[in-house]
């Protein structure tokens, strides 16, 4: 199938998102689509598949002008979209999830469960995943959920598959399996649009690349004809120096100590410590239990045993408000669900943990609130016209900055960052790293949970590796390598 999108324009209200984008997809190619957060990549694909309509522009499919009315119609015509936000029904089983909206039924209108089961099995085998079909989807790890979405897309026998950041939550093993599948699909003449912020992947599997910036197409090139630096330059519109800014670590006194933290069946005997001014990276495979450990420290989960010490004093944290009072901040891995109130303005989100301090006499002083928020916006370089814009309208990277600003605002002693750069573009990533450096220079202790090994290696002073709920090893910055981490993360010695 040959797709050509020409001069596409799109505005959401006053927000002009696309201003004349061109995009061309050839038969049987893997085409990368890159750009900063909010460049309009997902929007482009939403327009192609009929979820949004474009204000202006032409879409040609196999030479014929075609505008789909809805995603279902696009799917019928061979174009399937694996969305960036997972469309999972947590309370339904994996099998039910796979067939939502396209159940098989017999002549009486009843479900053909056996056939559906067999079909699902086939797809899972092809992807080499073994998720029980009757498991509740909500109890699957994010990675498993992502695989369910991919299997769902493969079942449609599409001629074009759009993958919007499919690997953001996958393990190395799952990723390599996915790449095999992509190669096989290509063999069968299926074309793939591959959207990702992970530069390595683009160069590993794609044939061509289109770079977008500020709602425009900057360039389309064959992969062999370009390189890493050129792509980054085109994306951010300027030269970007190192991926990871230099950091001078000078760890100070012991700040946070965790001793023997245990929650049966989830994590066991977790113990570690963080010094002021130090960044401790926490690595491990998907579902290893890192998030659960951090939630427990922050008072979001009850534990069966264990102690937490702060500044040499034993503390008892039962709920997040106590953690916040003690100066602990927590940037969760799911910013939409847990980090932000999307309908609320930037200002309202940023001051949430610090409200009390703006109302010494009970009434909020709007002036000092406003100054404070403007200071944070400047400091974190949040791209916005005003502090009164709803956060939901910002791009992913800017949303993440708002979450971080929220916690910077409390003047934290300890900051826990869970997947701080998930789905964030290279430019914004670097700004977040820079900010982490600034914070540690002022003595903040940082725990950074991340599934991206380059990030763990590039930013941490010390690395903890978690495997099946246990800390299987601790590596100093100097001795750490990808191989060593992977070995510990998979339970090897």
């Amino acid at each position: 199938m040959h797709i050509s999108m020409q001069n596409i324009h799109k505005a959401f209200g006053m927000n002009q998102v696309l201003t004349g984008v061109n995009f061309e997809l050839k038969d049987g190619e893997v085409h990368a689509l890159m750009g900063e957060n909010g460049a309009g990549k997902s929007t482009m694909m939403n327009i192609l598949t009929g979820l949004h309509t474009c204000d202006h522009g032409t879409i040609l499919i196999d030479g014929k002008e075609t505008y789909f009315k809805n995603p279902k119609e696009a799917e019928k015509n061979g174009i399937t979209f694996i969305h960036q936000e997972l469309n999972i029904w947590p309370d339904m089983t994996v099998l039910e999830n796979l067939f939502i909206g396209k159940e098989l039924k017999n002549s009486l209108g009843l479900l053909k469960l056996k056939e559906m089961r067999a079909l699902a099995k086939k797809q899972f085998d092809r992807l080499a995943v073994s998720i029980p079909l009757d498991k509740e989807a909500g109890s699957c790890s994010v990675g498993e959920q992502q695989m369910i979405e991919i299997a769902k897309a493969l079942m449609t026998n599409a001629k074009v598959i759009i993958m919007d950041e499919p690997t953001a939550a996958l393990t190395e093993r799952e990723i390599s399996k996915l790449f095999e599948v992509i190669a096989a699909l290509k063999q069968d003449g299926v074309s793939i649009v591959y959207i990702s912020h992970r530069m390595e992947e683009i160069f590993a599997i794609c044939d061509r690349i289109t770079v977008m910036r500020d709602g425009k197409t900057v360039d389309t090139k064959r992969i062999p004809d370009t390189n890493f630096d050129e792509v980054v330059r085109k994306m951010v519109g300027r030269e970007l120096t190192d991926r990871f800014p230099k950091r001078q670590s000078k760890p100070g006194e012991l700040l946070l100590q965790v001793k023997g933290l245990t929650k049966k069946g989830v994590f066991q005997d977790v113990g570690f410590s963080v010094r002021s001014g130090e960044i401790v990276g926490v690595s491990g495979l998907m579902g290893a239990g890192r998030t659960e450990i951090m939630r427990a420290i922050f008072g979001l989960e009850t534990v069966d045993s264990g102690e937490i010490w702060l500044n040499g004093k034993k503390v008892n944290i039962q709920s997040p408000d106590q953690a916040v009072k003690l100066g602990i901040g927590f940037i969760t891995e799911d910013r939409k669900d847990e980090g932000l109130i999307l309908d609320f303005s930037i200002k309202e989100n940023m001051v949430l943990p610090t409200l009390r301090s703006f109302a010494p006499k009970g009434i909020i002083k709007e002036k000092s609130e406003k100054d404070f928020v403007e200071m944070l916006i400047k400091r974190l370089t949040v791209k916005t016209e005003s502090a009164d814009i709803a956060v939901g309208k910002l791009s992913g990277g800017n949303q993440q900055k708002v979450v971080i600003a929220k916690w910077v605002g409390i003047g934290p002693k300890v900051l826990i960052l869970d997947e701080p750069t998930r789905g964030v573009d290279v430019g914004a990533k670097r700004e977040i790293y820079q900010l982490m450096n600034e914070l540690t220079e002022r003595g903040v202790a940082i725990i950074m949970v991340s599934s991206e090994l380059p990030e763990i290696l590039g930013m941490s002073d010390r690395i903890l590796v978690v495997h099946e709920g246990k800390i299987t090893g601790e590596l100093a910055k100097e001795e750490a390598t990808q191989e060593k981490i992977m070995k510990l993360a998979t339970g090897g010695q």
Partner: protein
Amino acid sequence: MKGISEGAPVGKVNLVHTISQKLGPLLGLLILFVIVSVLNPSFLEPLNILNLLRQVAINALIAFGMTFVILTGGIDLSVGAILALSSSLMAGMIVSGVDPILAILIGCVLGALMGVVNGLLITKGKMAPFIATLATMTILRGLTLVYTEGNPITGLGDHYLFQLFGRGYFLGIPVPAVTMILTFVVLYILLHKTPFGRKTYAIGGNEKAALISGIKVPNVKVMIYALSGLLSALAGAILTSRLNSAQPTAGTSYELDAIAAVVLGGTSLSGGKGRIFGTLIGALIIGTLNNGLNLLGVSSFYQMVVKGIVIIIAVLLDRKKAA
């Protein structure tokens, strides 16, 4: 293993979980049965059980429809008003000479149409289900009073089948109970064995994703509110036959009993989770409470207190278990 997983459960944990999920409300019902029959053995007499089934039928039918509505994350406050208006319209037709069975059919269609109005207000009008059905409840109640001028409609004659419908027995079982059981079977299949049922759960579980997956969310919703209206009208027909008349104020606050039955049956008010079998049990719990408290001669003042407390206990137990 909440939700609709009807397939073979996997692993021990799931099995136990499934059983406790299925048995949760049932267990509550059994405990209630034992308590009431120890306190007053006449509760277990066959005639009383048949009475109980007949008394439960009306609430159960309405609650079945409410289950679908609540599974999509909605609510239908207008069921009692639909019952009253369609009952009045049926009675009005019968009095003016329409064949009673035909009148019931027309009445049910009219009930479904009233449900369609709800559905359209919610989908096309983008109104919250609570406020949309609150408004139609008020309107339909008003229309019922206008149509009946506040008087009951009587003189429905003595058409045999019509009388049978609310008061008769079929193979020794009260006809309303038979209607309830048949309806249950049909709806069980609809909810658990057909694509329509899957869509119902999908909408309640994640409406946006359902839309993206190509489910015609508005259509499904309209159909579900229509179903709720249809079942309310059917309950109205039974009531009309039982009372041999139409009452303008019939069905007042039935919506609350129906919602209570659904929730007691373990269905979540936020949608996407629950089962219609639970609703049947929930309706039986409420019926047993009403019947049992009457049998025990508890004063109507204390009955309210007891009913409220039982609802709280049942829901709390269910939460505990889930946790």
